[in-house]
């Protein structure tokens, strides 16, 4: 026989199935790497970074694409009086923290959904 005698799935996996489809935490990333260099701009006192064919607000050097359904367009961010919406916990998600820890250094190249093949 070349098939597994038994395939058992544990409680850990069952819990994971249950968590699918729920909203996941907002994730903060740098949004650039050597292949896709940093491209930032500012309007109305707000800082933006180009990522995934649009512009995202920058906080603490990081952007949070998972919070938005789509990036802002250039005409949106450059219009007078425009103010972007931000995640409720926009500052704590990543970046350089006061205690000397930095996060968000991996994950910025995943422009599509899956990183598998």
């Amino acid at each position: 026989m070349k098939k597994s005698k038994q395939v058992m799935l544990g409680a850990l996996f069952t819990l994971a199935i249950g968590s699918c489809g729920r909203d996941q935490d907002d994730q903060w990333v740098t949004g650039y790497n050597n292949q896709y260099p940093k491209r930032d701009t500012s309007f109305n006192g707000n800082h933006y970074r180009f990522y995934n064919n649009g512009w995202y607000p920058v906080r603490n050097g990081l952007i949070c694409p998972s919070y938005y359904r789509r990036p802002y367009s250039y005409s949106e961010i450059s219009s007078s009086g425009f103010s972007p919406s931000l995640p409720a916990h926009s500052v704590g998600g990543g970046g350089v923290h006061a205690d000397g820890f930095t996060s968000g250094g991996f994950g910025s190249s995943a422009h599509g959904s899956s990183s598998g093949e």
Partner: protein
Amino acid sequence: MKRIHISPRANWQEKIKQQGFVYYKGYYNETAAYTFSAPEIDKIEAITQELFSRCLDVVQHVIDNDLWDEFFIPRKFADLIKWSWENDNPSLYGRFDLAVSSDCEQIKMLEFNADTPTSLLEASVIQWYWLQDFDDRKDQFNSLHEKLVAHLKVCKDYLNGDMKLWFACVNNSEEDFMTVKYLQDCADQAGVKNDFLYINDLSVQDTYLQTPFFTKSKEPVNNIFKLYPYEWMFHEAFQDELIAKRDHTLWIEPPYKAILSNKMLLVYLHKLFPNHPNILPAYYNDSSRFNGDYVQKPVLGREGANVTVVRNGSPVERTNGDYGYEGFVFQEYFPIPTFDGMTPVLGSWLIAGESAGMGIKETSGLVHGNMSQFIPHYFE
């Protein structure tokens, strides 16, 4: 090798969702299966093992000859890659994509998904449970689950520090999340301490280089399985931390997988083994060696993006994407037979370097990308 029509099980959607296959829509439908004879499966198993040995020969060749530029790997990672190779750092898995003639007389390697293969859950679990319902007296080339659990027991001896193994993936893919959670569950069954985090949440402590990576809550990450490719990590903000922390955070898959998951592997396989019956001729940025029939693939492409199939000198199928900056590998075209209008590719799995099972995907076109469908199989 045959393709048969089958009746889907009653409530099959509910069954597979309960088994974790929550990303099945448009990808799986239980209306067909592939069947094989035992000698055909023995042959696929043996050739998978043989191809893996030849791929490891290429890794040694790259290291011995410093072919980092040829593989578009930044030279600063050479020592890290060599170190992981010489220390035989643990690896869990890999998947060859094989093209097979209908009589299984000809079996050709299309590529090796060595670093971040997915479609594991459907190959290991979903088609196994399907066969239990379909006819449990039949056999299947699939000991993936058993071998994963057994190998993770062995891996325990290689783990650093607190011996906890973290499992990580990106935060926006259910397929990646369930793949990694399945592997984490296998580790749990193997008695390995484990936990999960998103790859974006990995942290470093700025002041001290001689520390491992950390979670956002400052727990040390001494060992980590990542479903995230080295070709991306080598260009991201923590790239230097990979090198600086090599003695403090163990990465699975190991860094030498950056050589094996690179399409330049195909070029060097052909260069080193030009008459091998299972290796197709392949060249870098050169289509002139073929008589107008070839497949053009980006060196660092993923999921069938930016692939062009050329027949008689004219493109017959082309996929879009953002890859190709590093150039293209041109591989001889192999005419895969169609079954009911569908073109199958065999995903032949290795666990711990041992041939361990098979999952089949098929498509109505020529290029297998993220729109292919998974089809179960059995043999007798």
